[in-house]
């Protein structure tokens, strides 16, 4: 909480202040479990109506949920593996690529919210 005080939450815009809730200890847990409950409800909902898709597999209860979960995980793992092979330092292409250069400051308007 001390950290919050240092950053003067009372000076943040109202919406920003409201959103500070997500960084409270335990909030991340709550969001995660709320999401789990939503998923469970969506799964149960699959039994309540007549499913008719283009393919038989769509008619399995919870097909989309399981497919989404498994494929998302697979995607992340595959991407993580891919990174091992294709990762390079930011200046790999030297000064002919924008990756390692600063964005020209004269085209920006770097305004700070509060001098805190």
């Amino acid at each position: 909480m001390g950290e919050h005080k240092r950053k003067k939450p009372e000076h943040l815009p109202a919406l920003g202040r409201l959103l500070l809730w997500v960084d409270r200890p335990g909030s991340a847990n709550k969001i995660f479990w709320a999401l789990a409950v939503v998923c469970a409800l969506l799964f149960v909902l699959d039994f309540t109506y007549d499913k008719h898709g283009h393919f038989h597999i769509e008619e399995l209860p919870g097909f989309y949920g399981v497919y989404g979960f498994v494929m998302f995980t697979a995607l992340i793992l595959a991407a993580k593996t891919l990174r091992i092979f294709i990762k390079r330092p930011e200046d790999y292409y030297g000064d002919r690529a924008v990756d390692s250069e600063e964005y020209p400051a004269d085209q920006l308007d770097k305004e700070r919210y509060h001098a805190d």
Partner: protein
Amino acid sequence: MLTDPWPTAFLFFAAAAVLPLLPKGLLRALLLLVVPLAAAWQIWTLDLGTFAQVEFIGFQLDLMRVDKLSRVFGLIFCLAAFLGNLYAWHVRDPVQQVAALLYAGSAIGAVFAGDLITLFFYWEGTAIASVFLIWARGTKAAYHTGMRYLIIQIGSGVILLAGVVLLYRETGSIAFERMTLGSVATWLIFISFGIKCAFPLLHNWLQDSYPAATVTGTVILSAFTTKLAVYALARGFAGTEILIYIGTIMTLFPIFFAEIENDLRRVLAYSLNNQLGFMVVGIGIGTEMALNGTASHAFAHILYKALLFMSVGAVLYRTGTSKASELGGLYRTMPLTAMFCLVGAASISAFPLFSGFVTKSLILDEAGAGHHPYVWAALVFASAGVLSHSGIKIPYFTFFAHDSGKRPAEAPTHMLWAMGITAFLCIAIGVYPDPLYALLPYPVEFHPYTMGHVVGQLQLLCFALLAFGVLMRTGIHPPEIRAINLDTDWTYRRFMPAVVTRVADAVSQFWSAKMRFWLRRVEAVVGRLFQVYGPEGRVAQSSPTGAMVLWIAVFLGVTLIVSFLS
């Protein structure tokens, strides 16, 4: 407004000519807003038909073919130009302003082109005008990136021209109508469209150049070039089966790269590539509903993609970086930008009540109805992939996640307005899709909000979100790190130059070895001559006068022989 309709593109060109004459500031920025609105009004009020036919070196050019397909693309291009220019309200650089007008005008002109020659001119127009939005960044890197972009874009135009010439020789027509792949001519045109549409292996100009443009330039770039290519494919190659598979690969490969990319504007470029894939699949299926799906998805996509680029652009504008590793926790001081970003994220992820849902399901449904099980499964997978990079990664690592300690001010008012209007449209299309459906090329018999659609899509997205939660909590999710990833552009940025350098080295070494060999021979001969005739040589030992007389005698003899023979 205009009794004899002008080609809509000319409005933009006229404005581009007038703009530098206006005083710098408000008037110019206003002109940039008025022109797209006037253009949209013109398109909206024009009857369907072909106008503005002109003669050009013996060809009849149709500058303004208004039908339902070109109209919907023309309208969204005007809307995108308006929103992009509103977002760029603060820009006072006339080069960018004129480029934005010429670029939007060329794209709109290309959409309404009824023949391939007009299409070619506008096709190159978009390339030349748009590169200034990259060069306007003003750095050496931007210059080189712009050059790479320009070479590929102009290349696409040259290939198009070659295709058009061959097609004219074959068929005697330059009309821009549906074509069938088979001849060299149609293949060339197809490849030219494919380059601009960022087909797999022809795609990397997109991820290379868009993150290099200016804050506002990227927003404007994101709308036109690739969607013009989608339009051209829909017009020229609807129902071409190979497009189904090209499109499917396009939806898949970028999601892996987007996942591990650090520059968020490049993440969005990969994501753009993935969304184009859905549209290309729709074109490949080629049924009326699938083409409706492509047109409506392009419409919705331009809006939510612009919105995402705007929100990341606003962050770049305020913090100086768009790298995920440097950002986080910005919701505290940029909450409105964060909310608009979330609307864009929900729209691209196709959450029910957001625009992507009512347009993408048209394509997915047609893939199912056409019995393409693998394509369908891939598209559903790609939909989960979209959620992972555009739905989660962009908003989460920018505005939430760990606190970067950055406390930038909220985006400027005009940017907030641009984002707000775009976000409103994303939701409006999602909640009430009927007006958009009414604009589509064919009548729509489709109800996105059935129990099956909604629950299925929510399951897919919520379970994928849950997977994200699990991966984050277990620490498996890859962290955002300062690095770049290789893509196929490595072949022409590193591999080919390296090969060329090696070959050049080898050739020059061989050359110099050869030179050395001959030089040594010449040196030896010279040395020998020196030895004989030099000051210390044997010839020099006899009296120089005697030698002179001897030589004169020799010359005299030669002269006599020559004059005797001739």
